[in-house]
């Protein structure tokens, strides 16, 4: 009997240890990746990285300034088109969405959320690059909007649903029109949550590379217009990383450090937004 009890206790100890170990193994890569990003990215992390155009291989210095501007342009365009559409669709689903049509829309949103981002690149290409016969910021923005919109529709719907029915009823009882109640009471109450969703979706699209490969294409110089090929940080990181040159590898790490800095700043901002509200 004694040995059975011992064996049971031992099994308990061992499995406990294994569970703890698995948690350790899961977060270990995070530390390794950040360590390498800081260690290798710091070498090229100079002020000129943020202000200069890329230099040809072998020539020291040079930056990713055009990529920073390009990434912000593309993401800005995608959001300018995506926010009104996604928020309005979210309002529809939360406030009116009960029928078959609403289920179809929800299904579409779920489907779009799961679509691999490279396929959104094909979407931008077929929709824009093929007919216009040129790579452009517009095409890239269309691809990113396809990733951005479903995320924001979902978070907007969820956030609006957290607004208590009593708030709506109170407004309606005061004789305020329903559309005004929705827009100025319900949406207003949920604003912080909706903005958080928008920021998280923005953090997501800023780091996307695959949809840009054959829409934005990349550009060594400053963008000359939104209907032209445009640089983006993720594309620069990718092209530098797969190049055979050591000094370009350093630039890839530095670019990656800038990119992760932007992504973390935006998602950190999103967290801050929700916290302030509480």
């Amino acid at each position, binding site marked *: 009997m004694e040995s059975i009890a011992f064996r049971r206790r031992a099994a308990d100890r061992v499995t406990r240890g294994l569970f703890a170990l698995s948690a350790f193994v899961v*977060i270990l890569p995070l530390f390794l990746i950040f360590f390498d990003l800081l260690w290798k990215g710091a070498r090229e992390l100079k002020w000129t990285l943020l202000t200069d155009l890329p230099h040809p291989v072998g020539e020291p210095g040079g930056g990713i300034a055009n990529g920073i501007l390009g990434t912000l342009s593309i993401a800005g365009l995608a959001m300018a088109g995506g926010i009104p559409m996604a928020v309005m669709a979210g309002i529809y689903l939360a406030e009116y969405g009960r029928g078959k049509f609403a289920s179809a829309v929800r299904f579409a949103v779920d489907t779009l959320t799961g679509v691999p981002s490279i*396929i959104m*690149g094909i979407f931008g290409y077929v*929709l824009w690059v093929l007919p216009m016969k040129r790579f452009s910021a517009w095409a890239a923005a269309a691809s990113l909007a396809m990733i951005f919109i479903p995320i924001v529709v979902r978070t907007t719907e969820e956030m609006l649903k957290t607004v208590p029915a009593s708030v709506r009823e109170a407004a309606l009882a005061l004789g305020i*029109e329903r559309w005004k109640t929705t827009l100025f009471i319900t949406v207003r109450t949920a604003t912080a949550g909706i903005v958080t969703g928008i920021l998280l979706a923005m*953090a997501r699209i800023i780091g996307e590379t695959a949809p840009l490969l054959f829409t934005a294409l990349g550009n060594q110089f400053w963008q000359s217009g939104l209907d032209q090929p445009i640089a983006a940080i993720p594309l620069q990181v*990718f092209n530098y990383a797969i190049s055979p040159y050591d000094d370009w590898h350093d630039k890839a790490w530095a670019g990656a450090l800038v990119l992760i800095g932007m992504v973390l700043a935006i998602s950190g901002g999103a967290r801050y937004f929700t916290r302030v509200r509480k």
Partner: protein
Amino acid sequence: MRGDNPKDVLFEKATAVFAFGVLFLAVLLFALLVRESVPAIRKFGAAFLVTKTWDPVAENFGALPFIYGTLVSSFIALLIAVPLAVGSAIFINEFAPEWLKNPVSFLAELLAAIPSVIYGLWGIFVLVPVLRDLLMKPAAHYLGWIPLFKGPVYGPSMLAAGVLLSIMIIPFILSVSREVLATVPRLQKEAVLSLGGTHWEMIRIVIGQHCIPGIFGATVLGLGRALGETMAVTMVIGNRPEIFFSIFQPGYSMAAVIANEFTEATGQLYLSALVEIGLVLFLITFVANLAAKGILNTMVARAGRGL
């Protein structure tokens, strides 16, 4: 009451238009994929899915090497990710002291925020060399007689892609697993403990019986993620359109071939074949996500009934 005020009707209609817009975008995406695939579908038919040749010069295209690479790399990823993610979920939910729970789950979630291209960069310069020198070379040397581990070892390989993918999908499997574990009724867990069971026995009995379908759902969800992952895989899988049994050999995936060859695709048929691969990828991930959602919804419904 509703619908009496014309402004209210107008506002509802206005939001409905945008909701319809989202629906339209999903349909448009599918329609465009199909339209552009038509030349390749006409030319190759169903044989496209089981043909091994990928010859852009002769315009002879088959997707099998890419489908194979996508499935195998994703399978390797699941093999690594599922035990680790479920183990961590159990650790966080059942064993971790209160002060440790939030930091650990926060750090795991942070993994999901890292852009794919950064995983790829890290994969090329850190993970691949480490795997090559510490794991693949010795393994190929001593276990090379097993076809699965046959050399020569280059570095970029199916295994490297699988390992990198596993790191990327763990956060998703982990968070869904935690939700699944949280559906176990507290009373059932306490019942086992009060009968003198150890924590491990409690987990094995209650969670084992209760959570297997949910964890399976989480796994399929992770699979959906892994199948479509592009940049990280492209950067470490080796990009060779051939089928090798050994996981130390390079391979290719559906997303990777689209990423690499789309801008080079000169002929109409070449482009169409690439879009068709995109269409197949779309359908596979669609089915995986649908299945995951179905499994998890039944699971939640059952938990709601207290079973």
